[in-house]
């Protein structure tokens, strides 16, 4: 562990060989399917249907990407998801930090009651149908609000934020600020928030990825195709195989060619739709780990 120069015993050496072998297998099992998807997406349609593509593109081509760029449904889904994600993340993060800050203050009377109100929603819920009926009665269906409001506050994230405030901001700081005549809102905006950039980053990523990856709210609350988020469009195209719009672009070709093209396009769509999250992955990795740590301290 600590001492790299320590001499390994025979059994330890065998252990390390098997240990590293195990890790290499884990790496292969996770990496190769991903590599294959990327390789297929950059291959020619004929190579894809002939089953030749393993981990490198065969007869590299961009035809899959070229075709999906012409698909309106997909691009509108991309744009919708972008709007839902930005708006939803703003609302969620704002609600979460303003909710977590009072709970982190020792002078806040009623802390226990409020905490319990939030906690109980993690243990019990009204279920899918009553929630759906509420959204329907509020006339929020087919609006952007159905995408961003019902799950705006994730209680788990609120508790992570509270734990962060409790652990990083000493009580003395609040007391000093109060003596200087700062009110509670001023303390929040001028002292707490500037000290909380790491937790803000964690929350932004948690919420943004959650909203970007969600298809189900779109499925139950939206009926107009022009409002569908990307994940719902993907579901219809990739899983329900509704490729009509896409196929129109390639009409005039014979059936087997269309099928081959569809196959490549599916891979291209998978890569294209995962691009935003993958570009953020280095940050995600850094901050998600931090978020998990804060969460587990409180556990």
């Amino acid at each position, binding site marked *: 562990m600590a001492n790299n120069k320590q001499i390994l015993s025979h059994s330890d050496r065998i*252990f390390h060989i098997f240990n590293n072998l195990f890790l290499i297998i884990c790496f292969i099992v996770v990496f190769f399917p991903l590599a294959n998807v990327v390789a297929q997406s950059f291959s020619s349609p004929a190579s894809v249907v002939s089953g030749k593509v393993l981990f490198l593109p065969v007869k590299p081509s961009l035809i899959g990407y070229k075709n999906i760029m012409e698909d309106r449904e997909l691009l509108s889904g991309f744009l919708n998801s972008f709007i839902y994600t930005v708006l939803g993340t703003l609302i969620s993060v704002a609600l979460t930090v303003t909710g977590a800050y009072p709970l982190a203050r020792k002078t806040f009377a009623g802390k226990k009651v409020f905490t319990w109100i939030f906690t109980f929603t993690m243990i019990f819920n009204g279920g899918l149908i009553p*929630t759906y009926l509420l959204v329907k009665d509020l006339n929020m269906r087919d609006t952007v609000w159905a995408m961003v409001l019902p799950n705006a506050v994730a209680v788990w994230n609120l508790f992570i934020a509270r734990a962060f405030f409790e652990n990083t901001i000493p009580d003395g700081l609040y007391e000093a600020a109060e003596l200087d005549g700062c009110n509670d809102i001023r303390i929040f905006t001028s002292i707490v928030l500037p000290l909380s950039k790491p937790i803000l980053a964690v929350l932004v990523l948690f919420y943004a990825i959650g909203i970007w990856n969600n298809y189900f709210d779109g499925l139950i609350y939206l009926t107009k195709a022009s409002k569908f988020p990307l994940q719902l469009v993907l579901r219809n195209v990739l899983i329900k195989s509704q490729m009509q719009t896409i196929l129109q672009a390639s009409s005039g070709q014979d059936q087997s060619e269309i099928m081959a093209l569809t196959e490549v396009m599916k891979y291209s769509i998978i890569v294209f739709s995962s691009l935003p999250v993958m570009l953020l992955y280095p940050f995600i990795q850094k901050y998600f780990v931090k978020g998990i740590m804060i969460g587990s301290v409180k556990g």
Partner: protein
Amino acid sequence: MAAADAVIQKGRKVLKQPGAGSSLSKRILKHWQLYLLILPSLLSVIIFKYIPMYGVQIAFRDYQPAKGFMGSPWVGLKYFQDFFSSYQFSRLLINTLSISIYSLLALLPVPVILALSLNETRWRFFKKSVQTITYAPYFISTVVLVSIIFQFLSPYGLLNNLLGLFGIEKVDLMANPALFKSLYVWSGVWQQAGYYAVIYLAALAGINSELYEAAWIDGASTLQKIIHIDLPGIMPTIIIILILNTASILNVDYQKILLMQNQLNMEVSDVISTYVYRQGLVSVQYSFSSAIGLFNSVISMILFYGVNFMARKYSETSLW
């Protein structure tokens, strides 16, 4: 001002005592802005979580949209009886439980082993690479994950391409309902093992290094260190994850199952929550499906308390 002076002098102690010194109402008045700040999130939870809890009474009523939650006629336990006596009930319960337990058993050991293994490797760059790659699938959306499974198993997918290298004939695994559960569970392990491993690695990093020094002096082998230091060290974390997963045993990932479901595998893939979705939102039987949803929530709540109680009693580790 006297009260303020006392606060300064005694510092935190005074603040900690709720009833001390100034009266409660004074404290509330002084910190009214805190209540203003918590209001939006509180309202959000009350509207979107507590109103549906109140609305769940439609499970006991014959809900008619025009009459609302309160106006619809009371029918008592009718819908519960309908559900328990329907031929679907045992099938749904068995599918839900078997998928969850299978998932629970598969997803518990793999991340533990991965974390212990990562913790032992001496090549830092290698460790980082494996961690980065195994963690990545966690951020793939459910829709994309299921599409990858479909593409992977398709006649032109990776699996058949690999089998082709060895001259094995093409197989269509998606059409085989017997494999549905394994596909669901192991794709879940593939997606989440890296994520849980990160949690265990954090726990491993917190183990007191003196323990390792003592073990080293005693001449313990690596395997002995893992068994006698690492495993006990992360046991509380394992138990907490077990509690959380056991409590949600009825709440399988229905959003994923819904995507993987088709006519061929319905017999093995239909679970309580996908049934609630179908009956409620596709067949528009609001009351009936609310009753099933409520049944699900209540059992989950009992399980949550039950498992937590057992953990507290037998292992000294619990959520509270």
